[in-house]
């Protein structure tokens, strides 16, 4: 598949947000690469699920959580354009996200879920 660079599209890149700030933007090839990476990570996640040696190790849950977090970040940064968008949008998303994740962790501790797991690992 070939895509040609187009002057009109180039011109549209400049002066984003009306603030005179020039931002780089993702290209079609970037979107395809991101989709490939997301598919590969998902395939690895499912593969890990079926390997008993990994499932029984202490690294099973952290490995899955890291891969999930990477996928989450890739979608938010590239597909939702947060990497290229205004800082206010980043604040509007990451602020509640931090509160949400803190709430999950706090509730897990409160109900003894995380304490039991930390104790088991330690």
């Amino acid at each position, binding site marked *: *598949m*070939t*895509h*040609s*660079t*187009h002057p*009109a*599209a*180039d011109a*549209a890149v400049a*002066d*984003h*947000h*009306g*603030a005179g700030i020039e*931002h*780089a*933007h*993702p*290209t*079609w*090839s970037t*979107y395809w690469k*991101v*989709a490939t990476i*997301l*598919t590969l990570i*998902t395939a690895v*996640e*499912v593969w*890990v*699920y079926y390997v008993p040696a990994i*499932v029984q190790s202490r690294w*099973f*849950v952290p490995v*899955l*959580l890291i891969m*999930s977090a990477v996928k*989450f970040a890739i*979608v*938010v940064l590239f*597909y*939702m*354009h947060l990497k*290229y968008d*205004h800082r*206010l*949008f980043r604040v*509007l*998303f990451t*602020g*509640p996200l931090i*509160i*949400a*994740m803190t*709430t*999950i962790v706090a*509730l*897990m501790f409160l109900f003894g*879920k995380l304490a039991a797991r930390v104790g088991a690992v330690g």
Partner: protein
Amino acid sequence: MTSVPLTAGHVPDAHDPHATSTGLDNKKIAIWAFIGSECMLFASLISTYLIYKGRSKVGPFPHETWTDPSTGHKFGAILNIPVTSASTFVLLMSSLAMVLALAAVQNKNIPKRTTSERILGSSQLWLLATAALGITFLGFQAYEFTSFVHEGLSIRTNLFGSSFFTLTGFHGAHVTAGVIWLLTLFAIDRKRGLGPRDEVNVDIAALYWHFVDVVWIAIFTLVYLIK
């Protein structure tokens, strides 16, 4: 392979009715604020699932087999990972179709010379593809829910059933709303054509759709893969 750079935002001007004192479009600020609030909604649902995980007194269970002591009937692990992996792949591909739909709308006025440019530049094609993939995902979910009920797990069976159906059901409802939104955009595109002036309207639909995708990324790991 060279690529066309794609615009990723609306450029409001002084005459833009949606412009704000921040210089940003109020619709985009609203959708990001909404997505932020949705993060907390799904965090509460995921927390509930995780807290109740492993506390069910009776089966069927997500990853373990169970024998009903009253009937002697054996239940297998209820989660079907291959089917859910396929539905996860479908939702990830729908996000790719969505970014291509947005890019097609943003670059509508750019002449398309080659066949691949015409395909990539067809907003109708990508909007319809996104909606179709969303409907496919919902089909997988309907199959999963139906098979669970046939295997003896309903929302009233145990704590796992209650928290699982509530969490994934809420997500499915969000996907349904997204599909309706996408089909509406497709109908508008068919009727009068979507162009760069509609960029923000397509962009906020795309942000919502990607958010639904990232929520599923978390659910797939926390509910389906972690035993």
